[in-house]
Each structure stands twice: as structure tokens, then as C-alpha cells.
């Protein structure tokens, strides 16, 4: 525990290792969640937690679904062009 905080702080001074694997694409999901949270908060005039969480979840899933679909379509296009 005592080593945890300095280690975390040191993380800001050296880049994290991100490989060139399909798994690295998972980094887009926190970003999509952040976009969904901020966008929904700007749209709601009054913020009720339950309704807000539900709307964020729907938007996050929509964005994620669209991004996955876009990835599949682009991969198919590349496969068709190169094969």
C-alpha cells in the first residue's frame, strides 16, 4: 500500500506499455464513457441520478455498438481489397 502511491505518481512520468494488438483498442471504451457522461449532462436540464445513469448507459452502448460496427466494416473492406 505504501509503495502504491509513489508507483502511481511515477506512472505519470513514463508512458504505459501499449502493444499493437487488437486488445489495445479497448482503450477507446473509457473515452466513449467520458463522452457519453459529459454529453448527457449537458443535455439534461435537471440532473436526477437514476435517469442520468440510464441515459448515459444507453448512449455509451450506442456509441460502443457503432464503433464496433465501424471496425468490423472497415476490416471487411480491407480484407476484400487485399484478398
Amino acid at each position: 500500500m505504501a509503495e502504491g502511491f509513489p508507483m502511481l505518481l511515477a506512472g505519470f512520468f513514463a508512458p504505459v506499455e501499449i502493444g499493437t494488438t487488437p486488445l489495445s483498442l479497448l482503450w477507446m471504451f473509457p473515452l466513449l464513457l467520458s463522452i457519453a457522461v459529459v454529453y448527457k449532462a449537458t443535455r439534461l436540464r435537471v440532473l436526477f441520478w437514476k435517469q442520468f445513469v440510464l441515459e448515459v448507459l444507453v448512449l455509451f452502448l450506442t456509441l460502443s455498438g457503432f464503433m464496433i460496427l465501424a471496425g468490423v466494416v472497415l476490416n471487411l473492406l480491407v480484407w476484400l481489397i487485399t484478398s
Partner: protein
Amino acid sequence: MPTKSNRPFDHTFWLFLVAVTAWAVPGGGHFLIGQRRHAYVFFAAIVFTFLIGLYIGSIGIVDPVGAKPWYLAQILTSPVVGWIGQIAQKGDYPVYGRPQDYGQIYTALAGLLNLLCILNAVYRAYSGIGETIGREEEHG
């Protein structure tokens, strides 16, 4: 919270104050106009996004000289980013490859999301939305 009628200063100055506060602290503009829940959400989302970006790419990704277009978006997060940029310029922090790309995307997007929050806070202050629902929202 001051309303239009009892505010001791000009409405234009009030809008300017909301904009500057929203830029200085993400969510600060909404906090000023009484929309506390919005303020907490914006602060948490934007600061968290920016910190994830810094953690992925190291503070070297805030580069006011070598990566000016990215820096212009990053500085929208808060003036604190300028201070981080100064630190990054003095030190020799490794920045490369995918972590750099991901870090720049995260931090720049945090800035652009804060721009959205600034505009939203100014619009709400201009149209008086915070004044009419501020108290109601706190108890809701």
C-alpha cells in the same frame, strides 16, 4: 447564489466570470450558477479523462512547442495544463508510439469536452436556467 435582479455587477461580467471559472476548474461554471450535480459530474469526467491521458502517455505529451495543435486542445481543460507544459519542457520525459497517440487523444478530448461545458455553463447563465432550478435541483 446571485440572481439577475440582486446581482451587484453587470450581466456581461457575470457571463465572463462563469466562462473563466468553467475554464479554470472543469464544472466550476455550473457550480457558480447553482447546478451542483452537473458541476460534480463534469469535474469528475473531465479530470479523470485528462489524468488517464497523462498516465498513458506521461506528462511529456503536453508539449506546447512540438505538438502545438494538440496543446491548443489540451489547454482548454484548465490553465493548470500550461503549468504542466512548463514542467514537461524542463524535464526529459519519454514520449513515443501508441502511448503518445492515446495520451494525446485522451487529454485533447478532455479539453474539447471542457469547451462544451464552458459553452453550456455560459448558455445556462445567459438564459437563467441555473437561477430557476438551482435550489430545486439541490433538493431533488
